[in-house]
């Protein structure tokens, strides 16, 4: 890769600390880079730390969440040491987020147009009301909502429309990076397809870099260039999308793929992974996937595997891959 990465995250770790309880290691030592215009899939199941990680990038963790280690560089500028004011300037203007659950993230008592305007005014205080209005209308048009509907309230919008409005809001200040946290969960398949299509088009049209935070491997396969598979707060596997889907090396990635229905192969039965994902405050001592892994052996229960380079630009954390990595 020749260009400098737009975003580069190194060894990021996040703990949750509640007084009187053991700290919960929600994210441990996660690294990745994001090039301009690139789409990264952050994949994992509930509790794997993907949402925490994305919130940590924006420094939007709840008060119990602490970034205990690592660095987040945006255009070579360290974000973790910025003052709160400087960080507020980065948020939305450079890195915006589409939150999970569009239904709850919109204010029910003000119009959609006003809420989009709010995001604009916050970062461009000198814009005149007419300019703000024009910009809001532009944004609505961009996401496929008739600008005349700017004066309507969230309850007058359908689920898909609200998600579009959320996207418009995220684009308000022309950010370079958009983090989309489960952008299509709880939407119908057809609406899901519409939203994903919209995000994909916007990415191409505006040259956005997008981080898709999702549990849906279908979304990742359709839209992403690179994939970071997380399990129990650590990186299980990190590679380009074709490698992840066609040559996965980590047992978790392999099992997860088998658990995902594929209409092009209707003969293969669905697989399930026995057991449940670990809780971040009760992690197994060795490899975090060991209790559920089909290839587990003694060492997995004792020692945490390192993140190994199994081939150029392909990282995986599994003891079984050590011989490949050393080669």
């Amino acid at each position, binding site marked *: 890769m020749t260009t400098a990465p737009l975003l580069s995250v190194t060894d990021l770790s996040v703990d949750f600390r509640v007084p009187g309880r053991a700290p919960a290691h929600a994210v441990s030592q996660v690294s990745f880079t994001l090039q301009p215009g690139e789409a990264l899939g952050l994949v994992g199941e509930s509790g794997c730390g993907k949402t925490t990680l994305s919130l940590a990038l924006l420094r939007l963790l709840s008060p119990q969440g602490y970034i205990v280690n690592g660095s987040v560089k945006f255009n070579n500028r360290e974000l973790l040491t910025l003052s709160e004011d400087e960080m507020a300037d980065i948020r939305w203007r450079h890195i915006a987020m589409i939150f999970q659950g569009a239904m709850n993230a919109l204010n029910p008592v003000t119009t959609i147009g006003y809420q989009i305007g709010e995001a604009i005014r916050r970062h461009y205080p000198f814009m005149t009301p007419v300019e703000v209005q024009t910009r809001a209308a532009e944004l609505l048009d961009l996401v496929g909502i008739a600008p005349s509907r700017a004066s309507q309230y969230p309850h007058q919008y359908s689920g898909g429309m609200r998600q579009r409005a959320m996207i418009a809001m995220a684009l308000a200040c022309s950010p370079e990076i958009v983090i989309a946290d489960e952008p299509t969960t709880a939407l*119908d*398949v*057809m609406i899901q397809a519409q939203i994903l299509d919209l995000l994909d088009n916007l990415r191409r049209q505006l040259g956005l870099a997008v981080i898709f935070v999702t549990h849906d*491997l279908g979304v990742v396969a359709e839209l992403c260039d690179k994939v970071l598979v997380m399990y129990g707060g650590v990186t299980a596997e990190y590679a380009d999308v074709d490698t992840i*889907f*066609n040559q996965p090396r980590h047992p978790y990635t392999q099992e997860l793929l088998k658990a995902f229905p594929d209409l092009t192969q209707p003969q293969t039965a669905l697989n399930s992974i026995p057991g*449940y994902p670990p809780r971040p405050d009760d992690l197994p001592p060795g490899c975090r996937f060991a209790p559920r892994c089909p290839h587990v052996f003694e060492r997995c229960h004792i020692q945490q595997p390192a993140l190994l380079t199994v081939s150029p630009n392909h990282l995986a954390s599994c003891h079984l891959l050590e011989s490949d990595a050393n080669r």
Partner: protein
Amino acid sequence: MNQDTPALALRDLHKHFAAGRPGLFDRHPALVRAVDGVNLEIGRGEILALVGESGCGKSTLALTLLGLETPTAGEIHFEGQNVTGLRGPALKDMHRRIQMVFQDPYESLNPLMTIAEIVAEPLVVHRLFPAPAERHARVIRALEDAGLKPADSFLHRLPHQLSGGQRQRVAIAAALVLEPTVLLADEPVSMLDVSIRAEILNLLADLRAKQGISILFITHDFGTIAHFADRIAVMYLGRIVEIGATAEILKSPRHPYTRALLSVVPVPNPRLRQKRQILQGETPNPIHLPSGCRFHPRCPIAEEHCKHTDPPEIPLSATHTAACLLIDPQ
């Protein structure tokens, strides 16, 4: 009873709601045609998937089958017997034979009740097996049938102490305890982690295989049911637009709506990024149904006469029918 009679048969079933209360000037408010002429049969021990987007009426259909909504018109036959409009004890008795598993296992269990209480509740409601020992045995058996072993260890826990998959198993156990012959499952895995969905699906398939339970599996996701259902029915705006054996629907869908739905199912293979046929807009409001074919405003291949003629169900094979004017039966 004849083994060939379907477990459940719906004949031209309608369920209309008044949209709002009758007002002072408007004595006849508009009708929401949630279910609008559904014909459907579920064979004994069959798994039938009912696929449709929200607003297509599939949930209303389920509530009507459960007797929680009274059909506006049409008939429901349960094991060959007309049970439409049953009331009182007869309805309650019917409830024993048709049970439902809901979508969200985080919401469908009372947080204050122990697992034992939750699973025993249907027995309490129906005053079955009042002897504590017998009731206990039934609860244990239902939990084990639902794959919660050892069942003893779950009895005194509360829902919040279980994982999502375990909770859904509890909900299934609470449905099984009445030994139903028909199970309605409304998106039972969509709230669960991908890695454990197959477990729940396999459990349901096992129940069918071992106990001969018929399952109506309601979903909006073709992916989940592709390996699982015997037949698939696709519902749009209150009506079944296509029905057929799973292989027929997946390999040769004939209705344009089915085709579009299938084309947007994400494929977990980046080499097969496909041209998706995305329908614009959303399912229209069932208050103002389009004239003619109800799908024509969103249909990519609609022709002029689709606006005027309501398509009949066209038989395509012994098991496959589709309601579209543009299908050539040959």
